[in-house]
């Protein structure tokens, strides 16, 4: 009598596992903003259970709203004494709703949504459109429109979202990161590096730094061209079937390689790829391959710490702090390794208060829930300013773009980068001093 439809249902045993102790409440950003039980993880699980038990309709508006309002930041997963896998529950519930929605929406809305996700499945489309945006910025049209204030008149916060767009790199990382980067010195590990989708076209610098830093620490880095989007955005939005297609492609793209680890520099992607075993567990052909692949996935910081990475002899002259990306701290439980990097790249290290509270980026949340997202961003920037640090390490592309936008808007002197970029800069500074000596 479950209100959910057979495939990809929120697992009953997980729903029962929630003992409603409420330990998640103080960690949940949306509960802290609204103070309403339904916007808490405990409330959301109760609603899922009500749907499962037939007490609430799957198409109930509040239910759909709540499943969409959740940031998916997984702070509740860190706090949960009973180990409830909230992330899996949320993705399943969203998938259920998504299927209902597709059946209900007019054809043109479905087409639009399909188009929004298409570039991540067809990377040539993503590259063409980013190239377009690059020239749009390059010829000064973006700056012109912004200065004129014409963008403010646009609907759906498009004007503000325009500001979120970073200055795009001239070249994609697949044009700059070689297919194989040989290790400096003796080879210690063979590492696969997926260049990704957004990382490839918008954050090429981060991919380049990752390859350089890993090679410097004894890794032979393979960056196969066919490794594209990992499917995290799809899974997060409740498009599990689409995510599975991408997951299979990702697993396949490393098939020819005897790798020791898959290095990931995007927390959201790492979290998704570490979960491939679960995502593909019903696929007889891929279940085993996917689990094996997932077991090798490591955040780049985890890998560097395992390799006892070289400390830069001449660190940057500024003080550093670190923001915990949700999908790294809560999703993967990786908190210490990125701090170990941030501690040695600058002149001093300062801890950020509430460092593991979501910055509001949360995948596409800043597009779909602009106001809430900005409220969380403001809090984050206030806390960053309160540390007095000059640099902030941010290990996830979504958070990085969001926090860079927040800092830009405030004219802050703080610079946000991926920790690996700081490490790369510190290595280069060390090199430069060595040469000048």
């Amino acid at each position, binding site marked *: 009598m479950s209100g959910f439809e057979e495939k990809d249902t929120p697992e009953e045993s997980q729903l*029962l596992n929630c003992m*409603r102790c*409420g*330990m998640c409440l103080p960690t949940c950003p949306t509960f802290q903003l609204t103070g*309403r039980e339904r916007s808490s993880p*405990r*409330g959301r699980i109760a*609603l899922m259970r009500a749907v499962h038990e037939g007490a609430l309709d799957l198409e*109930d508006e509040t239910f759909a709203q709540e499943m969409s309002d959740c940031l998916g930041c997984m702070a509740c997963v860190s706090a949960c*004494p009973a180990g409830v896998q909230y992330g899996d529950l949320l993705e399943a519930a969203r998938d259920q709703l998504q299927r209902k929605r597709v059946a209900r929406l007019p054809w043109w809305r479905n087409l639009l949504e399909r188009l929004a996700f298409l570039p991540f499945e067809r990377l040539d489309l993503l590259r063409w459109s980013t190239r377009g945006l690059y020239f749009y910025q390059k010829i000064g049209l973006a700056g012109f429109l912004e200065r004129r204030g014409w963008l403010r008149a646009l609907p759906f916060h498009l004007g503000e979202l325009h500001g979120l767009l970073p200055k795009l790199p001239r070249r994609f990382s697949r044009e700059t990161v070689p297919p194989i980067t040989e290790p400096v010195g003796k080879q210690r590990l063979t590492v696969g590096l997926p260049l990704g989708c957004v990382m490839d076209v918008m954050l090429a610098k981060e991919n380049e730094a990752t390859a350089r830093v890993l090679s410097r620490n004894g890794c032979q880095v393979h960056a196969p061209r066919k490794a594209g989007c990992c499917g995290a955005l799809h899974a997060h939005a409740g498009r599990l079937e689409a995510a599975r297609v991408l997951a299979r492609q990702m697993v396949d793209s490393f098939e020819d390689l005897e790798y020791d680890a898959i290095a990931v520099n995007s927390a959201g992607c790492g979290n998704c790829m570490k979960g491939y075993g679960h995502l593909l567990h019903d696929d007889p052909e891929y279940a085993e391959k996917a689990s094996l692949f997932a077991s090798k996935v490591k955040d780049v910081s985890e890998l560097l710490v395992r390799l006892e990475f070289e400390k830069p002899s001449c660190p940057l002259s500024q003080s550093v702090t670190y923001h915990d990306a949700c999908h790294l701290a809560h999703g993967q439980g990786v908190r210490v390794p990125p701090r170990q990097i941030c501690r040695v790249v600058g002149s001093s290290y300062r801890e950020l208060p509430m460092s593991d509270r979501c910055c509001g980026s949360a995948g596409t949340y800043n597009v779909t829930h602009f106001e809430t997202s900005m409220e969380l961003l403001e809090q984050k920037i206030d806390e960053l300013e309160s540390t007095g640090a000059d640099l902030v390490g941010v290990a996830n592309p979504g958070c990085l773009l969001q926090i860079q936008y927040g800092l830009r808007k405030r004219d802050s002197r703080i610079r946000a980068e991926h920790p690996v970029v700081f490490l790369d800069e510190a290595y280069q500074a060390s090199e430069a001093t060595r040469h000048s000596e």
Partner: protein
Amino acid sequence: MPTDPQLEHLRSLVGAQGVLTDLAERLSYSYDATAMMKSTPGAVVIPSTAEQVAEVISFANAEGFPIVTRGSGTGLSGGSVPLENAVVLSTLKLNRILEIDEENLTATVEPGVITANLHQAVEALGLFYPPDPGSMKVCTLGGNVAENAGGLRGLKYGVTRDYVMGLEVVLPNGETMWTGGKCPKDVAGYDLRQILVGSEGTLGVFTKILVKLVPKPQSKKTLLAVFPSMETAAATVAAVIAAKIIPATLEFLDQTTLRCVEEFAGIGLPIDAGAILLMESDGHPAAALEQAETMLRLAKANGATQVQMAADEEEALRLASARRMAFPALARMRPTTVLEDVSVPRSRLVEMVSRVREIARKENLMIGTFGHAGDGNLHPTILMDERDPDEVARMHRGFDAIVEAALGLGGTLTGEHGVGLLKRDFLERYFPKAAVEMMRNFRRSMDPNGIMNPGKMFRPAPRREGELPRSREHGQKVLEGLKP
């Protein structure tokens, strides 16, 4: 269930945003942290001032619809589960710390203040509010007072009751009353404050709480001792008390619990051990150290196979993690976690733990026991699957047997979770008839219309004169007798 005009009036009192009626909204207020209990409220009202609370209660009393007060919903006896389609009154918006009086060592707070937030605020001034229920990061002071919450520091520092000096309460007729004050000595009249503490939302809604503070202990020493049996651990507890030491913390884990902890966290506990004790002393550094050293010696003398004293704060946290992990580790074992809360005199603790073991064996239940060895309050935790009717039946039998065993050993129904819904059927086994009657009468005189948290603490009163049926057969007989 409130009617539409009633809801309309409630909206006029607290604003449209403060009244929730949507089904999904109401479902999310249908439970607290008690296993297998839920009941959907008729509406949820969220006032933001004490005056609004009074207006809402006064209206409910006039119209005769029931009210259930709710803080963070972390209660473990079903106290804030809204029966009879009651209206839930949330105190979460009344969340200001109004005053910290450093001269009189008191704090005045609103009921929705989170306990840990008060801890933080007073500790920043070198002061201390000792009650520390397990849910302190989430639970509210209003809820703590209503349930008379305890915690790990109960043995040395007492429980919530020992810290409440004054209360502002909205009575069931909507009138606001103040009782108590900042004078440590105050013997004027009946102590109404004390009957309000632990009244489980049946006598009114607190709108201001005045609590006592004490100076923060300067230092703390933490010990973790491993024992071959529960008996040797209990002998150590007895020896510590005989040595005239009242430890700040004295907590135990039985074998089932420590095995679960080790399986879950892998912190290096020997899984063949019979029990572990976490002991803490606090106070002046020299005194705390001396007490800790004595406890260490006593533990060894009584057969501890392994005793560690933390050298620094970090190690103390590591040692204490074994106790902190107890509940999470147990909760992960099975889908449903039923937490018990009986209390026995300290000297009967070993017997109680072994009774629980027997009950677990007899009913074929998985039960891990941990708790407060110092004050005899233990938490046998039944791990089961609510989807299995046979296991549910065995759980109910085991639950009943545990309560019976505790009462047999001179203990009580509940040490710190309250009676609420979970133990209302047991109240008459603990109290003599006259005491229950007196409590019912008191409640009736305070709340003649029965609007505050109906169905809690007492078994619903019989609708007719005479005896209640005790069993199905007896019920049949009673019905036979009623036939004309």
